[in-house]
């Protein structure tokens, strides 16, 4: 572990207790990623439903698609602002790792800005032109499709960055985004896990949204009722797949980290088991949702969902900590102010 290019930490101290910042990064990241999940899955859902609607000449599907596109365009704005806090905290507590991994894919990292501006503007065109472009369906679908492709691509950039940051011993060998994409382990497994989580959350969100609307006393229109049940169905089947994808990801971790989740570490093993049990329970609720509506099952499934997401976010953080722990000892962070420092800022 000698001669790794891990820089001394910034000489200015980390401005809060690290434990507090770790708690905040887990909390704020979960909030952020949920809205990201919704933005991606609802955009993809809108495009998918619109295309199917056109092929089948079914206006019900078109209306369902339109509802998805409306929600996607609202959630994308919230996703961006919510992302500021976790980005701020990761920059402050993992400066030595996150900055290097970011700069190693620096140009693609800056392309995120351009790509997202284009995708977001297209999402507005897609939403606001829905009615006006009824006669220009191909154009309309293309706009949504391009936005969707960009939104599906962006997570890869983030995944490469946060995977590369936990592998400092590999930094020297590879530079640039595309090279890294096929160089670091776990990337595609993480991507699969993430995309499935997005699709499940999107479906679950639509189920919750319209359940809530009907519980408030609104009579759901045909397309709303269909979308609600469709959402539950998507959430169910994708979550079943996710049980497999989760294990694929777990087995892509390096052995030292994987065994922590498989009995070596009591906390992590408990978290993993708990998350699997809860996921199965949620699946049962989602399955039943297709047959009977009850407000009780709505609140219980929401509560379980929140718990699962919380546990997932926590485990995700522990994975990073486990990977980085040997380095964190050897290359300590600046926790206190020393004005006469020996390091170069």
């Amino acid at each position, binding site marked *: 572990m000698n001669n790794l290019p891990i820089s001394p930490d910034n000489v200015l101290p980390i*401005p809060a207790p690290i434990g507090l910042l770790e708690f905040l990064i887990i909390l704020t990241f979960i909030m952020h990623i949920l809205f990201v999940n919704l933005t991606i899955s609802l955009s993809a859902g809108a495009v998918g439903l619109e295309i199917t609607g056109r092929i089948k000449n079914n206006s019900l599907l078109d209306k369902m698609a339109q509802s998805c596109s409306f929600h996607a365009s609202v959630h994308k704005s919230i996703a961006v602002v919510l992302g500021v806090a976790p980005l701020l905290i990761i920059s402050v507590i993992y400066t030595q790792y996150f900055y290097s991994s970011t*700069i190693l894919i620096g140009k693609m990292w800056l392309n995120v800005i351009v790509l997202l501006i284009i995708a977001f503007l297209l999402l507005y065109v897609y939403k606001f032109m829905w009615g006006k472009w009824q006669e220009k369906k191909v154009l309309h679908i293309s706009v949504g499709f391009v936005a969707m492709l960009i939104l599906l691509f962006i997570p890869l950039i983030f995944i490469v960055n946060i995977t590369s940051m936990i592998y400092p011993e590999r930094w020297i060998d590879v530079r640039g985004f595309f090279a890294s994409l096929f160089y670091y382990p776990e990337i595609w497994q993480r991507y699969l896990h993430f995309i499935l989580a997005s699709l499940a959350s999107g479906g679950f969100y639509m189920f919750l949204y319209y359940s809530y609307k009907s519980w408030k006393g609104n009579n759901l229109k045909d397309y709303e009722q269909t979308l609600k049940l469709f959402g539950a169905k998507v959430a169910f089947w994708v979550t079943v797949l996710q049980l497999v994808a989760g294990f694929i990801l777990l087995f892509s971790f390096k052995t030292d980290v994987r065994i922590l989740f498989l009995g070596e570490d009591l906390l992590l093993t408990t978290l993993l088991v708990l998350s699997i049990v809860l996921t199965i329970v949620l699946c049962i609720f989602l399955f039943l949702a297709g047959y009977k509506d009850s407000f009780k099952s709505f609140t219980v499934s929401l509560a379980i969902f929140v718990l699962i997401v919380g546990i997932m976010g926590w485990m995700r953080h522990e994975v990073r900590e486990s990977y980085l722990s040997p380095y964190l000892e050897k290359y300590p962070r600046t926790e206190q102010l020393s004005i006469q420092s020996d390091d170069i800022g």
Partner: protein
Amino acid sequence: MNFPYVEYTWLGYGTVIAIIAIIHVIISHGVAIGTSVLTVSLEYRAFKTENEKLDELAKTMAKWVLIITTTVGAMTGVGIWFSTTVIQPDSIGALLRIFFWAWVTEWIVFITEVVILIIYYYTWDSWKSPEKKKKHINLGISLSVASWLTMAIITGVLAAKLTPGKWIDTFSFWNAFLNPTYLPSLGFRMFLAMMLAIVVVAFLLRLFVKDLSLREEAFKVFGVWGAISLPMTFILGLWYLWSIPEQAYDMIVWSTGMTENTFKIINGLAFLILIVFLVWLIRSPKTVPIILSLAVFGASIGFIGEFEVVRESIRKPFIIYDYMYANGLLYQNQEKINEEGYLAHSTWIMEKEITEENKVEVGREVFAGQCLSCHTIDGWREKRALGKRLVGWDEEALKTYIPTMHNVRVAMPPFMGTEEELDALVAYLKKEIDEVNGVKEVSQSE
């Protein structure tokens, strides 16, 4: 060098940041703050005068505020941060630690702003009764306040880079935040934001709103805001100028790349156009000529661009005044690095010994660490492109010049490193200069 680096060989680091930052300033000031204020002002006037068309116009403006701020506005804001992480990691790393809680606070305000904006636009048609409309207008006012608050927070960070004040000694957050140029620059920026919004929106209304009486109504409201904002921008701008360090003040004209006279004439003219425009807007809102609104539009965008470039440049040689140089090296470490060597303190330079074989390669790394933040070899800004700037310099001349250049050129940070490292840098520069200009070219001194 604490981190790896990327190269923007043609654009140069400064230009990459400037493109993102200037777009962001135009949108955050002109659209998020200025246009929000104008929108709710129009909505209020429409409510008072029961003018349906004016209300409709205000709604259209709100829609564009929503579209622009949540796409280009938000992403270029994050983009400044993304680009500084890639390009100026030491500096942004330090700033995040100094101003962490300010950023957390800004984040909360920022979320509030976006959520209010979404509600504000999407409830426009459903909150119609007089009671609800009043509530809606109040929502618009809170939107303006929230947008202003984000500026009030981030200005503390920006101003501290030029005038960190007592922070240099105390390392205290409040000393950094409430620094000597905080209030004047905040005041200057907020009225500048209003002026920018007025000219931009007026230009667009002049183009797209054909209904003369509707345009007149809107321009009347703009006129009132302009009559307050233009003098305030001027007065607070002077206060701001007087509070910046003398060395920085002296670099203002230089940093624009203009001669003193051109600078005065261009800025004087732009200000004059603004006054003429504003008087016209107030005296005869129906007849504002399109050419005048175009001129004033151009002048304002130019002015904002100039302001950003100047603000970024006059800090030189520092990026955080009296603390960190533009290349990320700390002021306090100069002697130590000269003694122990730059390589010894560079995590990302793998060669720790200089040999004849690796000399040019090491020189390249030294160049990347100490020069690349402002210079290129062959970029579009000729003054910054060393391949062009240094035509005719031989190795001896470079070797004598580099260690003393900061005495002659006030914008340059001092070279830090040992004599061998200087040799390596010179060898690399010489090779690049020759390559850019064709090796056979006969040397000619500048």
